[in-house]
């Protein structure tokens, strides 16, 4: 065992580490802070030759080795709870989506007359095509669910606060990219919901004043969804997948530069309370991924109805509008907000703004984690929790309203939920941080 954890929360690094090839105590001594750790990469590269075990080793180039070692030795707060393993789950699902997607693309044909039957061919005749497609469909739902949980964790523990605004914003851009990819992927099978989903999205784009009509035509490649739309969606889906991989790398790189947050705030980010990524967090994340894989398999094999939409097994028919046009479950909250506003354009603004507002969260919430750690704000520690619970409720209710087409009582519920969603970001976050700051000063 390379690391020994003592009772007073300090870690002894007396033993030569198999990964780093040299005594960790020495390494720890050079780098007093996590932020400096990432900047000292050239130094560790230069120091790689010093390790006695490294010299006799003929492996990859020293830079690659140093890179891997640096990533494996990345220090993380030891009190990270289960919500922090979701990042690893997301990486695992992303890899699965990429591999299954590439294989599916070998059979799929982006043509309005052939797309549906090519997907049916996949399901019926391509060897293990049904498995690949099930993996890809279940993966999409799991990816979005895990992503929402990941964002929730960020909001819950203030992961967006300085110095991690950049990390948060890279993540929000990733969220937007993933949502666009999920939408374009859903259009590809060219079932009824695919077609009418593209139609609704095209009309929503067309509601933008002045340039709307032009944008709609560019988006659809014509007046109505058709082969040109499928080509666009396929190319977007394919290229965005790799863009997402690049953005995830950036996300992780920024994380390594800034260090991870901790459930116990700044106190948890002290050097003495940190542990290296390997083996502690590789094991923990590994367990998370295995648990996710079990859940994934159960849903895919025994409850596929949870992630598939029956109506999308009807081929697209431009002459027959389905009674219920509804998107996949992960877009329902935004669909609810779109419908809750009487005007088409303002509905688009409100539902698009619900995602875009995440970009501004670091500046809406001006408090720093130090302020929140110090300030008790009249004992109102429960207020942020209550507000966040309200946000989650608003998100769920907006989704339910979207599912019920915002009719009757759901119209009011959808509007209250939309208001509640925005109230958290525009009402609660700015004011709470101000009061917390005042509490620290006084």
């Amino acid at each position, binding site marked *: 065992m390379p690391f020994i954890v003592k009772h007073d929360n300090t870690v002894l690094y007396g033993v030569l580490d198999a990964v780093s090839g040299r005594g960790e105590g020495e390494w720890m001594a050079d780098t007093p802070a996590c932020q400096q750790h990432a900047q000292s990469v050239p130094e560790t590269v230069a120091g790689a030759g010093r390790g006695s075990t490294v010299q006799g080793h003929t492996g990859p180039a020293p830079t690659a080795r140093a890179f891997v070692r640096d990533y494996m030795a990345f220090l993380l707060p030891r009190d990270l709870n289960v919500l922090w393993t979701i990042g690893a789950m997301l990486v695992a699902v992303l890899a699965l989506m990429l591999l299954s997607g590439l294989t599916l693309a070998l059979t799929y044909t982006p043509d309005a007359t052939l797309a549906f039957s090519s997907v049916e061919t996949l399901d019926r005749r391509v060897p293990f095509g*049904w498995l690949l497609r099930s993996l890809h469909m279940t993966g999409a739902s799991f990816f979005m669910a895990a992503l929402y949980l990941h964002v929730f964790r960020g909001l819950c523990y203030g992961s967006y606060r300085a110095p991690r605004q950049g990390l948060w914003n890279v993540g929000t851009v990733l969220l937007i990219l993933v949502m666009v990819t999920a939408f374009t992927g859903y259009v590809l099978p060219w079932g009824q919901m695919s077609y009418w989903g593209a139609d609704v999205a095209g009309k929503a784009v067309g509601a933008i004043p002045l340039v709307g009509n032009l944008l709609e035509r560019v988006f659809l490649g014509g007046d109505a969804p058709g082969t040109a739309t499928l080509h666009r969606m396929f190319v977007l889906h394919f290229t965005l997948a790799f863009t997402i991989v690049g953005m995830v790398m950036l996300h992780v790189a920024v994380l390594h530069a800034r260090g991870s947050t901790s459930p116990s705030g700044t106190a948890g980010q002290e050097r003495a309370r940190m542990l290296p990524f390997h083996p502690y967090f590789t094991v923990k994340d590994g367990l998370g991924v295995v648990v996710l894989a079990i859940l994934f398999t159960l849903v895919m094999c025994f409850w596929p109805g949870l992630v598939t939409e029956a109506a999308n097994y009807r081929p697209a028919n431009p002459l027959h509008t389905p009674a219920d046009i509804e998107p996949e479950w992960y877009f329902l909250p935004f669909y609810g907000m779109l419908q809750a506003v009487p005007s088409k354009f303002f509905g688009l603004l409100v539902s698009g703004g619900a995602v875009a507002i995440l970009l501004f969260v670091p500046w809406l919430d001006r408090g720093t984690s130090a302020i929140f750690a110090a300030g008790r704000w009249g004992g109102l520690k429960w207020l942020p929790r209550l507000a966040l619970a309200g946000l989650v409720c608003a998100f769920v209710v907006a989704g339910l309203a979207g599912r019920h087409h915002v009719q009757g009582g759901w119209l009011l519920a959808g509007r209250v939920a939309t208001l509640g969603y925005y109230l958290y970001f525009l009402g609660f976050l700015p004011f709470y941080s101000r009061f917390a700051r005042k509490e620290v000063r006084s």
Partner: protein
Amino acid sequence: MLSVPARWPVRVRQRLLLAMLLLPALSGAEVAGETAQAAPPADVPAHAPAQHWSFKGPFGHFDLAAVQRGYAVFAGVCASCHSLTQVQFSDFGGIGLTQEQVAALAASWQVAAGQDAEGHLRHRKATPDDALPRPYADTDAARAANRGAVPPDLSRITQVYPGGADRVYALLTGYTAAKNSLTAAGAETHAALPEMGFATLMPSGTAPPCRRRCGTMPCCMRMVPSPPRSRKRGMSQPFWRGFPAACG
């Protein structure tokens, strides 16, 4: 800019008041407009009585003998109006047939093979790689032949129809002889699901044999169109006896 915490509740009260004033105004205007157009259909389909299917549940499996009997009914009765466009003959390997049997079964069907020198349509025997031929050239022909209703494609019928296999079963076994002259013109009245509401026009004469044999139909429809996700080789009978008769 808020400077004194004591003033905060006043602000909150103001905001709450504003919200309470705004919300009914926003919603009230819209409710009046939407209730008129959002009337639910009067004839909501009733739930079909649940049947005990062998493929039900996570550990279900297909009774391949029933699936094969279902195919015979499809080939003998349904295929005269309904298409099964997404299924190829080679897919019948999944219902427990060998390659030779699939080839023989395919050869019993005729598929279009272009035109001859005089412009007449030509036909040939199907091969395992052919899709099942459609009964009508296009939807217009189907509509013309069925008094305005297009017989739905059966490729995914138990998935896309609400109620699934139970509903198909109830539909097929629920026909009774027509009682009055209005419905007697070629269509049977539906006893089990009179409130189902959609125009189901099955050709007259299918009802009596259907009642007996169509019980296995949903099994076939469920099995053939589905991806072989949980397909298990659980054939209880060696081979269906009446099979060659249906193929010939």
